[in-house]
């Protein structure tokens, strides 16, 4: 298959490992389904990830903006729990998702939801554990000039630290702002979807530690079906705001290997609303570079034509 074939750069791709050169008998594509409707913001995933992968600390800053002092994914933060406090008119009516109540026991003697329908002072928490999306069409992988980033037999995207020379191209090419350089080290790091654990048939550390099964790990095809059922269930309960993010294999990155169920617009969680892999346009980019290079050569030739002076 040509590296420039439309399919391998963009659009739906059902066998990402085979496209990357693995034999047909590779393992199934593995991924995460993060159901944020049951996330309780405990950050067990962040801790488990740090512990298992021996990820160094990334500062102990108090942001003052929210309960979230981790702030964002980065070279030394491979799981990040976002905390969104939404109050007033912006907060959609809360529906009991079986989450723990913040009210005193018995505060609702008539057995109402923990809720906020009265309007004023209405507050809703959104919590979501973000992670590398392990895109079907991964910008970081496409642009890596050393081959340090590669597609594993599980369909995940992993950096080889012994090859990376810290050029930083992957950082600018990620439409989600996930991967980054570790400043004191110089190289790029991100979630490996616990490649070492996967090879032993184990569950990644974050999913293993999640107490509410908000982070679910498994075969991507099976996770997608599970997510569809969960979405249907929530819609039936009247939670119209629930939507899947990164589930669609036809989206701008060909679908995410790690996708989400969200309760608000993606940008509220710090996610891009409609990410597209930059390499989608690489054909157009090279075409224009080629024409520009020919133009420059032509300008050079033309400069020597005419009166000799």
């Amino acid at each position, binding site marked *: 298959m040509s590296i420039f074939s439309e399919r391998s750069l963009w659009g739906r791709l059902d066998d990402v490992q085979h496209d990357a050169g693995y034999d047909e008998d590779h393992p199934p594509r593995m991924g995460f389904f993060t159901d944020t409707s049951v996330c309780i913001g405990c950050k067990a995933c962040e801790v488990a990830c740090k512990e298992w992968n021996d990820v160094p600390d990334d500062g102990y800053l108090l942001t003052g903006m929210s309960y979230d002092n981790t702030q964002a994914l980065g070279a030394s933060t491979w799981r990040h729990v976002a905390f969104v406090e939404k109050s007033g008119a912006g907060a959609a009516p809360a529906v009991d998702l079986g989450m723990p109540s913040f009210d005193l026991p018995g505060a609702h003697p008539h057995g109402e939801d923990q809720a906020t329908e009265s309007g004023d002072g209405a507050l809703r928490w959104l919590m979501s554990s973000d992670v590398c999306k392990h895109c079907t069409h991964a910008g970081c992988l496409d642009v890596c000039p*050393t081959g340090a980033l590669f597609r594993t037999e599980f369909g995940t995207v992993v950096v080889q630290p012994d090859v990376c020379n810290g050029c930083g191209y992957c950082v600018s090419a990620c439409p989600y702002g996930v991967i980054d350089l570790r400043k004191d080290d110089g190289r790029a790091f991100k979630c490996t979807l616990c490649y070492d654990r996967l090879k032993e048939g184990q569950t990644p550390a974050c999913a293993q530690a999640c107490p509410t099964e908000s982070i679910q790990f498994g075969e991507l095809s099976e996770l997608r079906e599970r997510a569809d059922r969960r979405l249907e269930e929530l819609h039936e309960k009247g939670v119209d705001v629930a939507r899947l993010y990164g589930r669609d294999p036809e989206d701008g990155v060909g679908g995410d290997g790690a996708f989400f169920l969200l309760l608000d617009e993606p940008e509220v969680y710090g996610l*891009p609303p409609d990410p597209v892999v930059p390499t989608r346009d690489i054909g157009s980019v090279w075409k224009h570079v080629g024409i520009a290079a020919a133009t420059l050569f032509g*300008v*050079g030739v033309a400069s020597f034509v005419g009166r000799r002076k």
Partner: protein
Amino acid sequence: MREQSMVPEPEFESYYGRQILKTPTWKTPDVPLYLFLGGLAGASAVLAEGAALSGRPQLERVARLAAAGGATAGTVALVHDLGRPERFLNMLRVFKPTSPLSVGSFILAPFASFAGAAAASQVTGVLPRLGRLAGVGAAAFGPPLATYTAALVANTAIPAWHEAHRELPFVFAGSGAQAAGGLAMMLVPLDQAAPARRMALVGAALELVASERITKKGLVAEPYRIGRPGRLMRFARNASVVASGATALAGGRSRVLSAVAGATYLASSVTTRFGVFEAGLASAKDPKYVVVPQKERLARKETGGAAAHTEGQPAG
């Protein structure tokens, strides 16, 4: 002085106003300087070969040294930018058309070798025929060297760079032509510098037209219009116009004026690269440039039904 945006501030939601994309980790001045040096070196190699063919030894000498010097200094800047500079040879480990940095490494390496050999032969007088052959090689790799850097920045998720991917190669080609022509105008006697003047003039025109098309692009191009990158872009434009006026009126008559105009072209070329680079950084730091165009695209998709992807749509 500062140009105001013509559209009202768009309303959008974000996660506590935090940026979504990572700010490019490429260092200043390493990378913008490399963009400039690649343009200077690439266009100079073409100028050198033309000078050799048309019998302009002083122009040839200056252009050959500019090609070799630009490639050497550019390589140093590029290696210095790496997080692990000792691993710079890993750039040649694979060849990937999807990575402009990979392709660029395979342009820069032969270009630097050819330009270095041609310049060394020129200076020492050793192996003149091989030196000329190397000069031809440098002239062949020169225009790709001057323009591939546009692919380098365009093939990212950074909105101000990606959405300008059709125009940036021409901005960089024109900017490189101005740099090469400008340097030769400074250092070469008037009677041999006519091609350098013409190259700079045409380069300036090319860059002005292409830059203008970028700045007209609405919200995604706002970083090119406001703040520090906006000031840099306007300075570069004005410098190009002034230098071109002086060159057209008296570039062939006054040695002093030619040198001043040449220096102005060089200043314009450097400034353009810093302006483009910093516009990219600015567009990564504000979630507005990610959220608003992507929401608009989603809205268009919904209204347009299955009229899915056309090449004109912004990526991100």
